[in-house]
């Protein structure tokens, strides 16, 4: 048992370090972007991100496990992790705008798109020239994605699409999207869905940013008014949309599983506790503060070493176990509780924010973003269902709408 690279891994790490050293500057003091607060896509930042993405794609580092000539080098998942670790030590533009497209949309296109589509879209996406978004969630279908209502109707060789999506990350700067629609409301909900890819610049597509509770606007509403889509833009068979969506969501879990969320953690809480006085002396000496620090530390450390276990399986060429599925449940609620506790220690000053608040408002920011983190990419509740059903093998929920035609289903409003 050790934390060392194998000889091959060490060689790859050296190769990645050499390439990064030649192409980027080592990271200074700036901390990593907060994943919970999605980018607004300022023009300059986006240009820098695209340029960096292109450079990586040309060298095969953009999607290491993908084939050569498609932005990849036919490498292993472990090499992909090693490159990510190494890249995080350099001051490089965010790859955030491409994460959804390359992590979920393009793999779906690769699995279900025709040869022509693959030829046309894969390389521009991996080079950062074209950005993709995922159009699944709707006002009437969040956790219950298959309850969506956006309607696609066949008219000749085209489909006409009307409806609305919501919580669409990055829609405001996306060029294309994969869109899950209802093509047959007369059959049970999972059976009447069909997947398409669409052009986000079509005038029949309207993107409206959502102002989030945290103040940021990473998410959008997207409206479709008589959007006309060619039948060749269909991914999978008519009525097979749910199976196609599961492919996408499987990739989503792989992508999100490794995320650790905000940088606010035990270290920051301890730094805060060292500066504050409570009724009985320094906060860091207070027994209740120390108990909480320890509780959160064992969660953070537990996740870190769980990631190491997953990496070990990959390093040995094995399939990782299901333990990686615990990360987001643990991270999101820890962030919420730890941030709230930090504000509690700050006392009345805890109700301030930004530069007026202690620690530059880091605890307030974490507290404000954490509700979103507990919901996005699968709510805590859905993730618990997934662990219970897929990992532990417990029976699925009783679904009263399972065999009922979609248009006969009771709805709230």
């Amino acid at each position: 048992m050790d934390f060392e690279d194998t000889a091959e891994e060490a060689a790859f790490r050296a190769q990645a370090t050499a390439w990064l050293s030649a192409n980027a500057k080592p990271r200074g003091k700036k901390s990593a972007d907060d994943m919970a607060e999605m980018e607004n896509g300022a023009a300059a930042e986006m240009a820098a991100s695209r340029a960096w993405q292109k450079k990586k794609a040309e060298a095969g580092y953009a999607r290491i496990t993908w084939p050569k000539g498609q932005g990849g080098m036919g490498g292993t998942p472990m090499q992909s992790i090693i490159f990510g670790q190494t890249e995080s030590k350099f001051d490089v533009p965010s790859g955030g705008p491409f994460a959804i497209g390359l992590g979920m949309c393009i793999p779906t296109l690769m699995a279900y798109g025709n040869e022509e589509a693959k030829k046309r879209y894969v390389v521009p996406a991996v080079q950062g020239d074209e950005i993709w978004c995922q159009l699944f969630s709707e006002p009437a279908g969040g956790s219950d994605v298959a309850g969506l209502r956006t309607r696609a109707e066949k008219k000749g060789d085209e489909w006409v699409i009307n409806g609305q999506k919501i919580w669409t990350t990055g829609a405001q700067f996306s060029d294309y999207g994969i869109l899950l629609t209802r093509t047959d409301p007369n059959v049970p909900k999972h059976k009447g869905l069909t997947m398409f890819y669409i052009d986000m610049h079509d005038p029949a597509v309207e993107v409206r940013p959502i102002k989030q509770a945290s103040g940021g606007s990473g998410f959008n509403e997207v409206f479709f008014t008589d959007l006309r889509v060619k039948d060749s833009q269909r991914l999978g068979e008519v009525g097979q949309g749910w199976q196609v969506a599961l492919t996408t969501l499987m990739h989503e879990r792989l992508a999100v599983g490794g995320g650790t969320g905000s940088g606010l953690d035990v270290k920051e809480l301890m730094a805060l506790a060292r500066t504050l006085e409570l009724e009985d002396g320094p906060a860091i000496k207070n027994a209740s503060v120390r108990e909480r620090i320890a509780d959160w530390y064992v969660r953070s450390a537990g996740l870190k070493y769980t990631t190491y276990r997953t990496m070990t399986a990959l390093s040995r060429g094995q399939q990782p176990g299901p333990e990686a599925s615990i990360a987001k449940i643990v991270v999101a609620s820890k962030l919420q509780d730890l941030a709230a506790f930090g504000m509690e220690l700050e006392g009345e000053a805890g109700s301030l924010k930004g530069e007026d608040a202690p620690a530059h408002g880091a605890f307030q920011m974490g507290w404000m973003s954490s509700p979103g983190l507990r919901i996005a990419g699968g709510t805590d509740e859905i993730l618990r269902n997934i662990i219970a059903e897929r990992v532990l093998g417990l029976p699925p929920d009783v679904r009263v709408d399972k065999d009922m035609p979609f248009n006969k289903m009771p709805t709230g409003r």
Partner: protein
Amino acid sequence: MNFDFSDDQKMLKDQARKFLAEKCTTKTVRKVFESTAGHDAALWKQVAEMGWTGTAIPENYGGLGLGYLELCVVAEELGRALAPVPFASTVYLFAEAVLAAGSEEQKQKYLPKIASGELIGTFARAEGPGAVIPKSIRTTFKGGKLSGKKIAVTDGIDAQVAVVLARSSDEVGERGLSLAIVDLKGAGVKRRAEDSIDPSRKNAELTFDNASAEALGKPGEAWGNTSRVLDRAAIMTAFEQIGGADVCLAMAKDYALTRYAFGRQIGSYQAIKHKLADMYVYNELARSNAYYGAWALHTNARELPLAAAAARVSATQAFDYAAKENTQTHGGIGFTWEVDCHLFYKRSRQLGLGLGPQRTWKDKLVTELELSNAA
């Protein structure tokens, strides 16, 4: 990255599981649980014959000299089986104390007998309710004689020898403390079996009245040595705890699949599913923290005290949660003597308190974090 046990270690674990599945069912556990016996002597003999007591004892002291990773995988299986044997007291505590602080002569005297299974040992610290701190130690060790009283000494009835934390001088705090090894069959030692929450791991009260004892380590170093031994024991115990916690999850799952209420399996209700998902999350976090502890033991890493505290806290939380929610998942039947839930519920507390409560370990964890931040 190689943060997992090797194939050989996994094979050892597999063997241990098969062996214990045959030799140590919960019927075996209940036999000790429901009698005055301190342990299952036949099982203990077989455990020693397998070489497990000498797993990490060097070969020149009669052990297998395998190492701590091997000991950790055995510990997990003993924890799964709730093995009613004095393994932890003898191997994680007594042997570790001798290895940490013993003279060459003491190592020669005790370690081969532990490896062969002839000797049962334990470690006596607490003298009353509340935290074990230097000023709570009133037992004296002066001129080779031990006097005083220790409580809640696990395996204190069956052990032949004990390491005792005692006061050897009037110097305040930890500097006045010493460790002594006492022959529990010798003159001046009285033992009383104490009523214990987990009678498959029984505790005893030990009273010393001028009992002859030999010093273990230098005077003044006792507190540090005790702390080092407890750290190491905490990591191995964490493996017992995750073994137990995994069984609780499996029991709860099996019951949730077979028990029907309101016309369907109770495992189809989210109230039950989410509880079991949380058990899984706690267990996996605990397992990962314990693996880090195992690495620290194996390499004798500088980070060992922090790794031990994290493994201890995480595993205690996981086993506590799994044991109580397993009982809850079973409903009324889970609160009966016949169903095994209570064996795990009781063992989870015994293991969670035996090396000191979570409170103590959490405080220690943060102290270690403060030290590592300062470094």
